[in-house]
């Protein structure tokens, strides 16, 4: 393989893994929420988007210092995430798919409110290291790529350690397995649940900020991203830990290569073929959502 082709291959792989790192950050939020409350939040990406858009608006339009703007955006993301649990998810009737339906409503609401409040133009966000690049063997290594990749790995390992090695993780798993028993054992199940939702807001905000630096901010930019994360979650299974986290990295890498080799038109069918193949090939027991409360 000629050096240039090798450099291109490394470039595509690096960017795919960096995107995968951010998918993993988002995925951890999705998994944690699913494990404590058995819910899927379709508005998950928008939770991060509104925070990032607010930060942009505050520092670029209102002229507030960047750090204060970032903190305000983070606060908004945390607030939206915790309110989604407290006001919406806790009150959902126990009916198949209502969590999806209600959060689809929230997605629509947040998207249109963001458009009304912040406008419809895409805006360039803070650089967050995207402007730091070094060349190694013809491969341009961007500091933001490395940051995203390392963050993804750190979050993946950190999440595993917290869930398996800490008392917090034990409480979480106990609440996930049986909330009533966990409560009788003295665990503040509802408090823990809201805390987890808030953490998911933090993760969404981190990923949304880094994606904004790599792309730009508008009301829609997180939606296709979060759909890819859900697809990875669907492939891996949200009641597990390692398979969905690995799927997050893999699906980003897979899409990058599909687009590089076959053009952007190949992106959608490539994922579709992967999902259908997996659904057809994996054993049935793998698809059973073991802890899913719905009949």
């Amino acid at each position: 393989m000629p050096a240039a082709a090798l450099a291109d291959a490394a470039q595509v792989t690096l960017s795919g893994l960096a995107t995968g790192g951010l998918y993993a950050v988002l995925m951890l939020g999705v998994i944690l929420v699913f494990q404590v409350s058995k819910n899927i939040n379709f508005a998950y990406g928008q939770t991060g988007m509104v925070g990032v858009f607010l930060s942009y608006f505050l520092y670029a339009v209102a002229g507030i210092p960047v750090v204060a703007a970032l903190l305000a955006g983070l606060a908004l993301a945390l607030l939206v995430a915790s309110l989604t649990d407290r006001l919406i998810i806790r009150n959902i009737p126990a009916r198949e798919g209502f969590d999806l339906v209600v959060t689809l409503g929230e997605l629509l609401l947040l998207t249109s409110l963001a458009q009304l409040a912040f406008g419809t133009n895409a805006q360039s966000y803070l650089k967050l290291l995207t402007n730091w690049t070094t060349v190694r063997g013809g491969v341009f290594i961007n500091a933001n790529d490395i940051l995203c990749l390392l963050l993804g790995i750190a979050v993946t390992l950190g999440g595993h350690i917290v869930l398996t090695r800490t008392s917090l993780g034990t409480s979480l798993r106990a609440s996930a397995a049986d909330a009533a028993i966990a409560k009788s054992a003295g665990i503040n199940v509802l408090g823990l649940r809201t805390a987890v939702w808030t953490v998911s807001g933090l993760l969404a905000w981190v990923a949304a900020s880094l994606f904004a630096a790599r792309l730009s901010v508008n009301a829609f930019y997180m939606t296709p991203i979060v759909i890819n994360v859900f697809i990875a979650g669907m492939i891996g299974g949200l009641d597990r830990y390692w398979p969905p986290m690995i799927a997050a990295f893999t699906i980003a890498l897979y899409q990058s290569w599909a687009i590089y080799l076959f053009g952007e038109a190949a992106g959608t069918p490539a994922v579709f073929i992967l999902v259908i193949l997996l659904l057809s090939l994996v054993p049935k027991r793998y698809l059973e959502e073991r802890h899913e409360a719905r009949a």
Partner: protein
Amino acid sequence: MGFRSVLTCFGTGSLMVLAMLAVAGPAGAAGCNPNEKSPGVTATTVRLGATMPLTGSAAAGGLGAGAGAKAYYAMVNAAGGVHGHKIDFTLLDDEYSPAAAERQMRVLIERDHVFAIAGGEGTPNFLAVVPLIEREGVPAIGPYAPSSELGTMKTPHVFMTAVNYITEFAIMTRYVRESDYARSFSLVGVQGNVGDDAKAGMEQGIGNPSIKVDYIPEIPGTPDFTPIATQLRRENAEWTFLILTNTDTGELLEAMHRIGYNPRTAAWAGMNDPGYIKAFGPVSQDMIVAEETAALDSSDPLVQQFVTQFTKETERAPGKFEELGWVQAELVVKALQDAKALTRSCLMDSLEQIRDFKTGLLPPITFGPDRRQGVNAVGLVQIKGGKVVEIVPFRALD
């Protein structure tokens, strides 16, 4: 993927539309009939309508153009209107969506019974309503909908002032060939007839079949532009031409920059926009951009007059989209004023008589009994710092 069709549905072609139009109705105006009954005209008003994207990802264009048109009509109405008729202008939101545009055009034609369609903004949304316009025989004046499918006698009711992308890219490429002796070109374009038109224009501008254009079609809404940037770097052309949404243009340039590929760039007229330059100026330095409407700081007295009048009407400074809406309205009013009577056939006749109409904001406009493309010229500007500098005034493809 996902919601990308909502993000944008930049155009692709439809031979079917043209096939339908061929059987749709009478072609061309059969002369002015002052006694004909036309809808939308009362003793005191003449009702005009347009659809533009007022919400969604392309709303900036529609909101700006809409404001420009409204300001012009307000000025005309304040001065007594046209032939004693005040202009009643209805602007509806088409969300930049072909389906929504079709629905709204029905509202204008079937519910509001407008006399004519005055302007418009966006190609896919306007192309969607052309069959309805032709079927109902409503004159449509000066929509901004660059497309090689419009501007001919296949769509006789549509009077175009927007240069199509074949001409725009041919003029731009010819300039690059002449000024830079460039020998290798790549193009990233929205998949469909927009990208195809740009490619055809580049090939025409290059004028040398041995020089190929490496064309990469794009679909809006990707989470990572690096694979496309890497493809471009592999081709390693001296010049990369872009015909994408503003957001995607900026994001692709950022990705190219990140992987160290910095060719010279040229883009369609959409990048000649303060919003784009504010967001993506740093990665777009020296980019050559087509100029379809005159620079707002031009010394042309007609342009200065527009800036003054618009500011007086609205108490704010105009942008490029406001300029576009204003000049669309100016052309409409000119045609109404010249019409022998306020009937549709007389309006068509009046439009066909327009020769070398100078607005200062667009290149001079000329229509004729067999001519529906009123403008065939663009200028070129270059992004320098936070603004654009004109490098070539309006020029036509000879």
